[in-house]
């Protein structure tokens, strides 16, 4: 499959995502420049972490105005898998493609460490291959990761199974101690209504190789690849 990784000015995990997709997941990858207007021939899209435009004003707010974003919106609307990681998640909320917003960590500090998240929904390309309830060990590295939305939004997210990842402890329990940033309901990642767009604060690309301590993050990308192959098979089937 061919993945597009968007490069915003100030993205700093773009090369990391490209490495994991290419060298570990054996995918084709194209860098998508923020100033481009088209997304040609990509099967899936990653909005990487970093500090786009320095995260000035609000994290992700200025990147949300980038020339490429209309194409991203269209790709998302067409059902293409989109993964927003950390700053990429913030960009997706700022564009309104995902609901809610990410506020300054409750502790006010930037936090870089491995955390555990529980897979709450298999209804996305990135979790379809993961057993619901699976506990993943994936690092976080953010200062603005406290998920916030109005209560009605959160309850509908919960009701519709759109909370995809929730912070938990090593055995999957959600405790106050397991929530690193004060996110509502311990939310670490969510999906859009169709499920094809997922945003999360943890960095799956940093958990892609045993040498770096965990391969749990790789499973998100592999899940999406399997999902894409399945979809392609179906489409070819219907085409025939």
């Amino acid at each position: 499959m061919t993945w597009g990784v968007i490069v915003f000015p100030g993205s700093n995990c773009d090369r990391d995502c490209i490495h994991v997709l290419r060298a570990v997941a054996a995918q084709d990858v194209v860098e998508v420049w923020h100033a481009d207007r088209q997304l040609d021939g990509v099967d899936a899209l990653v909005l990487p972490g970093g500090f786009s435009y320095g995260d000035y004003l609000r994290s992700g707010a200025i990147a949300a105005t980038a020339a490429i974003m209309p194409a991203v919106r269209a790709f998302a609307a067409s059902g293409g898998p989109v993964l927003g990681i950390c700053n990429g998640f913030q960009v997706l909320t700022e564009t309104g493609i995902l609901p809610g917003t990410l506020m300054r960590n409750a502790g006010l500090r930037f936090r870089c460490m491995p955390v555990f998240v529980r897979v709450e929904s298999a209804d996305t390309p990135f979790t379809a291959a993961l057993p619901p309830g699976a506990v993943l060990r994936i690092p976080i590295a953010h200062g603005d990761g406290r998920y916030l939305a109005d209560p009605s939004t959160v309850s509908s997210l919960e009701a519709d199974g759109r909370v995809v990842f929730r912070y938990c402890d090593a055995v999957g329990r959600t405790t106050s101690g397991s929530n690193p940033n004060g996110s509502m309901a311990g939310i670490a990642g969510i999906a859009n209504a169709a499920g094809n767009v997922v945003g999360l604060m943890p960095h799956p690309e940093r958990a892609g190789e045993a040498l770096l301590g965990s391969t749990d993050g790789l499973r998100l990308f592999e899940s999406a690849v399997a999902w894409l192959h399945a979809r392609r098979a179906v489409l070819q089937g219907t085409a025939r």
Partner: protein
Amino acid sequence: MTLAAPTDAATRAGLSARDYREVCARLGREPNLIEARMFGVMWSEHCGYKHSKKALRRLPSSSPRVLTGPGENAGVVAIGGGWALAFKMESHNHPSAVDPYNGAATGVGGIIRDVLAMGARPAALLDSLRFGPLDEPRARRLFGGVVAGIAGYGNAIGVPTVGGEVLVESCYRDNPLVNVACLGLVRADRVATSAAAGPGNAVLYAGARTGRDGIGGAAFASAELDEQREAADRASVQMGDPFTGKLLIEATLEALGTGAVLAEIGRAAAGLTCASSEMAARGGAGMHLDLDRVPLREAAMRPDEILLSESQERMLLVVRQADAARVAAIYHRWGLCAEVIGTVTAEPRLVVESRGRAVADLPPEALASAPAYDPEAEIPGEIEARWDLDGAPLPAVDPADALLRLLRHPDIASKRAVYEQYDHMVGLRTVVTPGADAAVLRVLEAPPLGVALAADGNARWCTADPRRGAALAVLEAAANLACAGAEAVAVTDCLNFGNPERPQVFWTFLETLDGIADACRALEVPVVGGNVSFYNEAEGFGGTRAVSPTPVVGMAGVVEDVARTAPPGFVRDGDLVVLVGEVGGTLGASLYARVVTGEVRGRPADPAFESSVRAIVLVRDVVRAGLVTSAHDVSDGGIAVALAEACIHGGRGAWVALPPQAAASLGEALYGEGPGRFVASVAPAQLDAFLALGHAREVPVQVLGTVGGDALRIATHEHSIPEIDMPLDVITAAYHSLEV
């Protein structure tokens, strides 16, 4: 010719009478005000190394691996696989004292650009920090502000901060130290230079616009700091913009990739003046600059302001005229400024033009080579006085209580509260994250190759004996690397001292250099770059003291296979706890003595280079061979603290016996400090091989006990009642008590 008396111009430019006469002598005329200002910053201690230049020659700076030694933006050393590392440490002490956040942040930005200027992709940062006692509000504010500044810049720019140090001593109360090292990776055949060459070539300005930032900051960094000056110097703080810094990295690496860049330099200190004169001097060429073409942030900047501005995130490049537009286009695409502001000339003159007339016309060499002094050196009386206290009896303290006090001491306590605020993983290179003896980065481009990094310095040892203290710091860095299975290949150092014009200070400086040199020779590792920071002493703030001699040693080593390193913590119950090296060490200038007497007394251990290096090499080899399951060097707090840390890191206890006859006292056996000692753990089946190897290498290796249980128990004999019997959770809590 005239031996002019220092004019008003000279004093306004911050030139001493002596230096002003030297300027006139070199020029054969008096400089105009702008020229005088240019000399003022270039001949400041910070840029000019007037007091240190000659002494620095004492450091060994060559090895078969060295591609670029001291003198360039950063040293470059081959690491195999066709790759090389660029390595450099800088101080940002005075700016951080005045404005902890912006001072530390711009320190990070500056050192990253030095490494970038070698053509290397910045891959890791280390930060060595020194503060006054952390129970004092001002020290707390400085600590918090500096850490926030390093995080604020380093995290955003996407270079992981993988290690460092935090040490606390009262001498840093008014003089906090902020030293930052950057490591970059570059293909051995793609190393860049800052030597301007090729008459007619274009001088390209790239990056952020020039504003009135830190005018005269380089000189400011060398001026003794007191309250009045702090007020007066406010204009001198610089503000960094990591966002632009990140764009500058990507654009510059892309530009270098085209092969069109002939030379480049990344400068903030002394700005355009320093960059242009150093590039020209290093290339034996000249430069013609037109200030009207410099992209400005503010209208109506004076020529000297443009020349001395320390605005951040700027580079100066030399490219062929034919390539200028193509290279500029790369920077523009990244949203940065790029303007041709001049040309390289054959004749060694730096001619600066503004509004159509030449405002300065100077020999670059004269600017770039400040006079080298031979300051007087005289041994400070108090040093011998301290030595006389060696072996003097210490107040009796309950050993278990002492262990807790040591584990809580900021010098030893876990720095997790600091490095959790740093993105230490971005780049996917960090195989061993902060908290271990050395950080290990993989060289993604040449697996399974890796690079290990450590930074070390010890105020107590250097206060009591700068020569030994500096040597011990180098040995400790090498020991840290050995625990990661790494062979040391490069040292960069930051030398933080008081006023070098005082003979007692300069004596400690020379001793320190000799200590570093001795140890580097013993380890056969070159010093490829570094920095000197003098005048770290302050009047006011209720203190008048200079900092203790504070060398900070940054060391990089090669890891042949990143999968073969050893963790510091015990990993398996039933493994045997092994001591490499002798029990004992000394309590002279030890942290134990500091904690129980409140002062630094006695003399630190003899470096014993031969045996220490043998032990270091043995540990490196057993780690590489996978013979040990964990390895941790014995440092501050001696064997007892090393054992406690191995238990805490591994989350399991141990029961050990320390043969007391080996030491003068129980306190010395437990808390004595000395080089070339390690606490390792080994699977019983591997023990004989380990012992045999130790015997063959003439390194003492002895079994102290066994890993297991939920407490650390240290007895004097195998069967006696433990002198120390501490539950794991108690020592763990003490160790994790440090807050930022």
